[in-house]
């Protein structure tokens, strides 16, 4: 390899890891909901889209930086998730339905409603958020004059990545160190035993859906400075979260983090070595491969019980 080739490869890996960190955060929310509720939340990407519009308007109307909007959009999304779980999903869970997948279909419906509402209110225009630091970057040669290769690090991508890492660590802390977090994991592993321990499992499910929505809401804010926004963007991110959830062996948080990083790097490699437009194709190939090689097929997703830390 020539040094130019090494430079391209390293640069690609760096972008892949930065992207993967955000993907991991998006996947974590779905994974959490999956682990505790045994349902695949197919409105996940649409929830993120809603959070992005919140952050977008906060920026345009009140000049609130998208990174600050994490603290606004995530709680709002938490609340929205709680409402969705309480008033839409729970009633369907209660009904002994003909189709056990009813809740999943319901989440598809919720996603459609959200993206249609967004189109109605905000039109289907593509928007980008003109933050001042959008194109700022750090260069290796500024820090190491005699460096044989040149690498750059985008400021917004790096800041978003750091935020994603911090949120992930906070989530880990919550799930492993607090009683509520342990109760959520216990509910995922064995709801009946959790009940015996005094866990209000219905409440845990509500909190979990809120938490999953809040996490993807935070991810949306982090994505805003580096991505364009339009009402239909949810679908592709639902797919991304789904792939990560499968890659991460379903329901394991550590799995989701690794799954996110793998997917980010894979997409980045596809974009560099095959072509910019091919990243979504690479993602789709990975999605199909997951489904084909997943032991037990998609149905095992719904049956899978466990959820680690």
């Amino acid at each position, binding site marked *: 390899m020539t040094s130019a080739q090494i430079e391209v490869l390293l640069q690609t890996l760096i972008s892949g890891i930065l992207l993967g960190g955000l993907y991991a955060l998006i996947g974590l929310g779905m994974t959490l909901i999956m682990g505790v509720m045994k349902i695949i939340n197919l409105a996940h990407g649409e929830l993120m889209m809603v959070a992005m519009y919140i952050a977008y308007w906060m920026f345009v109307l009140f000049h609130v930086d998208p990174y600050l909007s994490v603290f606004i959009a995530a709680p709002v999304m938490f609340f929205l998730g709680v409402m969705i779980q309480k008033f839409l999903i729970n009633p369907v869970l209660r009904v002994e339905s003909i189709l056990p997948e009813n809740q999943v279909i319901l989440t598809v419906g919720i996603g459609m409603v959200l993206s249609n509402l967004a189109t109605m209110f905000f039109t289907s225009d593509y928007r980008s958020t003109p933050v001042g630091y959008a194109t700022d970057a750090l260069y290796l040669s500024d820090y190491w004059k005699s460096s044989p290769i040149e690498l750059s690090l985008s400021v917004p991508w790096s800041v978003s990545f750091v935020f994603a890492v911090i949120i992930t660590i906070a989530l880990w802390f919550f799930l*492993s160190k607090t*009683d509520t977090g*342990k*109760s959520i*994991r*216990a509910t995922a*592993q*064995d709801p*009946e*035993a*959790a*009940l*015996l*321990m*005094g*866990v*209000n*499992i219905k409440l845990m499910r509500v909190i979990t859906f809120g938490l999953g929505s809040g996490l993807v809401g935070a991810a949306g804010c982090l994505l805003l400075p580096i991505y364009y926004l339009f009402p239909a963007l949810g679908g592709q991110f639902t797919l991304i979260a789904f792939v990560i959830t499968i890659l991460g062996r379903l329901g394991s948080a550590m799995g989701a983090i690794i799954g996110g990083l793998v997917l980010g790097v894979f997409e980045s490699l596809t974009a560099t070595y095959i072509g910019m437009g091919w990243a979504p194709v690479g993602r789709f190939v990975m999605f199909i491969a997951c489904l084909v090689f997943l032991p037990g097929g998609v149905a095992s997703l719904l049956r899978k019980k*466990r*959820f*680690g*830390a």
Partner: protein
Amino acid sequence: MLEIRGIDVSYGDTQVIRDLSLEVRKGEVVALIGANGAGKSTTLKTISGLLRARKGEILFEGTPVHKAEAYKLIGMGLSLCPEARRLFVEMTVDENLDMGSLKGEAKRQRQRTKEAVFGLFPRLKERRRQIAGTLSGGEQQMAAIGRGLMSLPKLLMFDEPSLGLAPILVREIFDIIKKIREDGTTVLIVEQNVKQSLAAADRAYVLETGRLVMQGTGEALLSNEHVRTAYLGV
């Protein structure tokens, strides 16, 4: 302490428990014995609120609990070590013990109770950071009993604590139950191991296909002809 008055329990259309009444007094060890499928586990699950009785009532310290939400009972002092242990298999031993003490006084006393549990089961202390699913069967049973004790229960119910354990461990489990009782906890135990549980119990009830067919002191039942032929094989 616990009073069950004429309960019927069904799974769908299949009635499993018929007009069952029994009583556990403060400080007692009471055994509920019966063949496979007699309805012992069903009875304990109904007491714990996991199943609902169609008819009849259940009083715990005089308070009706047959309509209470299952998650509220442990806070009242009613705790079940369920059949097959049901540990949280992806959590550590420590975390499983924490899960036993989520409420009120039990939570405040968590560290102290944990030390007491480690006193009973030194093996658990060595393995406290180990994932529960990787413990041996005997260690898992110790963890399950420990988790039950963490709630500082007034009444601790065991569903087949000796299942699948080597004879020496079975004896150890019964010794522990004796200690638990000496510490002032009332015990209701369901067992296949009829001989040992009758020996350990003050009183016992015999359940056959969902009906109570006999009751008496552990000693009386041990020497009863029917019990001897049906359950002790002598």
